[in-house]
């Protein structure tokens, strides 16, 4: 029996449809992340940065503002201790955020950073950040959350102010055992 042309078309189309499904599920999300990372759009900052020996550019001063927001019904108190600093590019600077768990149960939080303007995201490096880890806090306890950052010397001349925003999410439900560890 010769090969059935209808069946051949059918097989090709089914494979095509299945391929598009897998593309949406397994290619589009990572591709989007890579795209945002490469172009710096979306304001996402990178992970821990290795300090280089480029030195400090004292001829230039950049204003860095801090914003802290609670997502949705997150009940913690969350605020930067200093709202604004002036730094020289290349100079490691520390900033402290303050968080207090105002509830009567242990909770775990995750802070998600975002940098505005988006063009500054790839020039804003963090050598140490509380956002690299989840933050567990016992009922009623508080903590100072440290952040060390460096503004890159190559920051475009047009950018004089960078706003770093943290949004605090309640992730207690999604980390099994994290709360138990506290006690």
């Amino acid at each position, binding site marked *: 029996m010769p090969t059935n*042309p*209808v069946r051949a*078309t*059918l097989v090709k*189309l*089914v494979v*095509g*449809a*299945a*391929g*598009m*499904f*897998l*593309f*949406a*599920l397994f290619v*589009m*999300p990572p591709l*989007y*992340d890579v795209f*945002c990372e490469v*172009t710096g*759009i*979306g*304001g996402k900052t990178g992970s821990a940065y290795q300090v280089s020996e480029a030195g400090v550019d004292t001829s230039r001063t950049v204003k860095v503002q801090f914003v802290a927001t609670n*997502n*949705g019904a997150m009940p913690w108190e969350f605020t930067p201790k200093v709202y604004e600093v002036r730094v020289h590019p290349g100079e490691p600077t520390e900033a402290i955020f303050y968080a207090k768990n105002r509830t009567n149960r242990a909770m775990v939080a*995750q802070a*998600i950073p975002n940098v505005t303007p*988006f*063009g500054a995201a790839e020039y804003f490096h963090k050598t140490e950040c509380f956002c690299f880890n989840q933050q567990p806090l016992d009922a009623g306890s508080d903590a100072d959350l440290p952040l060390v950052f460096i503004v890159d010397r190559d920051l475009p001349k047009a950018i004089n102010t960078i706003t770093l925003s943290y*949004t605090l*999410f*309640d*992730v207690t439900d*999604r980390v099994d055992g994290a709360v138990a560890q506290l006690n």
Partner: protein
Amino acid sequence: MAHGPAKGIGRWLFTTNHKDIGTLYLWFSFAMFLLGGSFAMIIRAELFEPGMQIIRPEFFNQMTTMHGLVMVFGAIMPAFVGLANWMIPMMIGAPDMALPRMNNLSFWILPFAFALMASTLFMEGGAPNFGWTFYAPLSTTYAPDTVNFFIFAVHIMGASSIMGSINIIATVLNMRAPGMTLMKMPMFVWTWLITAFLLIAVMPVLAGAVTMMLMDINFGTSFFDAAGGGDPVLFQHVFWFFGHPEVYIIILPAFGVISHIIPTFSRKPLFGYSSMVYATASIAFLSFIVWAHHMFLVGMPIGGELYFMYATMLIAIPTAAKVFNWISTMFRGSMTFETPMLFAIAFVILFTIGGFTGVMVAIAPADVQYHDSYFVVAHFHYVMVAGAVFSGTAAVYYWLPKWCGRMYDESMAKVQFWVSFVGFNVTFFPQHFLGLAGMPRRYADYALQFSDWNMVSSIGAFMYGASQLLFLFIVIRTIRSGTPVSEPKVWEGAEGLEWTLATPVPYHTFSTPPEVK
């Protein structure tokens, strides 16, 4: 010759006949059209006056969401699949669809999908209330529990569409009559072939999007949840990568229908056939590279905004080629104005208005004003209703006499046309003004200055709704007691293989393929 249709309900449940399945699709889509339409009537009744009059805001949100979902996926898409089932085998000289049993399956899973979706209206928490675009996290973190029913309904419906498309492509590529080359295919077949490829490319992406939602909601992943490292904006990209081709999936078969009706009643062949084919293909290609024009306000870099703006405006060129071709077809033709032609001409005019407002919202800086306002609502109803629905209505008036061997009542049909035409414009034209004045879409209430135009719009909507009941009446009356017609060419100017068949069309046609010269 073989047997006729089986008797009783079994005929419809187990049928593999393309005409039966086409009929099922058409009736199903009309039922969904009335359901989605009744949601629209509730919306317009609530918006008749400012303040909350009839329903609660939570229910209003469910109504706007369900109206959109039911109309797009339940009414418009199955209507054109039904027309494809009926007409494609007859137009290309094939005895049936290539995969008749899959055809049966692809129809019969649809009622389950929509039963699943509509059942959420009666559940605790209510129906989906996050808009038909179901943006995360509104549709994940903040959604009612019934969102899972919605997700499975979308999966089933997507499977149905994909099977339907596979069937159409397999039929068109393998079963054309000897001598019918691709460039001799009727326009409706061409537009559906291209649409079917679009469907196969993007329905799986929609399935992927809802699968990611399902996993975010139930299995602790974070595709769209910033707390776990995901990104809600990713959802919008994935959704519109499906969503923009989707709007062409809806409109391309409508273009095909119009490209048959206008030549018939102008008594001239379609002007610029090959440019029509290339324009259709260009529109389909462009539809994949413009999706982010729905997202100008998410915070895109200026380069991205410019790219998506120019790419979107580019679509106006092939679309304009089509409009000019239709006008050129009519130019110096010996035109008559039977109801299908009236709907087709109204389509050309109103679709062009919708196309122009489309170019307006494509202008990124201006879109800041138009975005999520009633201007957008007016724009897409001009292309979806005056585009797809008018074209579907035209198709039914045009082909119904051929299908059932009975002519509809011309004067009643003309009344139906004028009531729809006036009702439609009274409903949606003022919404342009409302949008420009700043009225946001999807709200259950509005500021006092919007009262007058909203009242006008609601009156128009009731008029348009009533005209659809008249349409139902006319169709039933035609089938039961219309004047019999028996000439193969029901319309003297009609051309094509389908018009060489007997009227009414026999249950089995083209058992031996015709020769196309």
